[in-house]
């Protein structure tokens, strides 16, 4: 009886491993995001979900197109997972060099940032936090001074 059960378990394990081997493929991958979808369900349920897809790209590893799972209302959604193997992808296509743009060159920047600067720690979609920045310390013979900056604005000059 025990031997039979062990055999069944071994066969099940073998099938699982085989299935995983089939759904994984080694190569160079990149994620691309799908659009945001709205799922609907019983009792007026309506929620959002987003899925990612594996496309050929520059991350060496394996892609499991259904490696991630989430639930949205009563809908079970499977989406891609890339498992990087740390190797390089030397032939993943041409890539352009981007020069770092001038900071704050866009006059409409504040319209999108809405009072928050990139670099903030987002505590929730609407609440953010930026640690104060100690930008410099001056040391004289018998005194020290520090300038504390908050988002580019001088908050205090201490010790002077």
């Amino acid at each position, binding site marked *: 009886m025990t031997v039979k059960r062990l055999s069944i378990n071994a066969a099940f394990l073998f099938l699982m491993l085989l299935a995983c081997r089939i759904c994984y493929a080694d190569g160079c991958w*990149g*994620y*691309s*995001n*799908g*659009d*945001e*979808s*709205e*799922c*609907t*369900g*019983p009792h*007026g349920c*309506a929620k*959002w*979900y*987003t899925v*990612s*897809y*594996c*496309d*050929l*790209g*520059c*991350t060496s590893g394996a892609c499991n*197109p259904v490696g991630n799972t989430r639930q*949205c*209302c*009563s*809908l079970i959604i499977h989406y891609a997972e890339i498992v990087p193997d740390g190797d390089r*992808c030397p032939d*993943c*296509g*041409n*890539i*352009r*060099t*981007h020069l770092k*743009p001038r900071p704050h*060159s*866009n006059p*409409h*920047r504040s*319209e*999108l*940032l*809405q009072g*928050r600067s*990139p*670099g*903030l720690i*987002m505590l*929730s*979609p*609407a609440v953010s936090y930026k640690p104060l920045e100690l930008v410099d310390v001056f040391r004289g013979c018998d005194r020290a001074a520090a300038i504390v900056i908050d988002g580019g604005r001088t908050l205090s000059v201490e010790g002077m």
Partner: protein
Amino acid sequence: MAQDTPGKPEHDPKATASSPKPDKGVSLLHLTRVGTVDVPSLSTHSFTPPFPCDADSNIYYQDDLRAPAIHKLNSKGEEVALFQPGPNTDKKLDRGGNFAVSPNGDLYELVFPHELTRPVFVYKSDGTFKSVIKLDPGFIWFPSKIAVFSSGQMLVTGMEYDKDTTAEMWPFTGIFAGDGSLLKEVKLEDDETLRDMGVAGDSRVKEVGTPGNKAIDFGQIDVASDGNAYLMRWTNPAVIYAISPGGQVVRRLTIDPGDPNYYPRTLHAFGNRLAILFVQHESMEKIMKVVDLEGRDLSAYDETRRSEAGKSMLTSAFYCYTENPTRFLFLGANDQSMLQFWIVEPR
């Protein structure tokens, strides 16, 4: 089977919960479902953009990108054409993608075969395969949205790698010729800010555990009667660029829903107007704003709510916008998940 009863509200239009904040002088009416058309041949549990509608009020419904098939449905809910990339290529396809209907009725679909090329499949309006165009900007990228001008030139936006392939990707937008060659890169002035926000992990553009930038990935494009494409980024306020077929940014519009928690779901052009549906991400409450092509507010509508449960009455699948009378077409589903057209008017 189809039941079309425009003119008769299905729900009490007085039962409303949301209140957009339109500019002074803009009417505030409620989006009210006035008719339903069953589509018994299709069932659904989810709605994913794009939500295109052509000049004859046919709508194009795509249900599963991994087994891509786009259903063209007429206003009676009858399927009049089916667009499938699979039977039209020998290549292994990873998935289908975004698509657009050209002014002459051809359908252009971004398709992802298992290779680095990024082709567009072109179909005639009856669903028959016409040609394949390989988009060739000269570097690897991930196109996500497409629009087609009457000239056959395409506006495509997506993301490209940084030299450090693990770093935040860069938005890229270009005008492509009918043969797929890149005619012009279109620089959009907010893209730098949106990428900076992505680098910083700002939750307004980044979702935990997923790559990409929501402002670009969730944006939409439609071509208006002035011949320009209106490319909308998923931002608050909504930023919309009017882009000419030659790749000039003619105008930059910002449409403010009046509440920082509403994000633009989709936009549709009709005549010299744009209708933009904003959705509150948590409550699913909706606001429809209608503006002219300069971005000036013309109308704002909120949603009639089910008074007893407070549930949202409409989906976010906003497909068509027409005037005289002002009418919007949404897709929805009944309790048995049968696909339905929902005819919606402001009341």
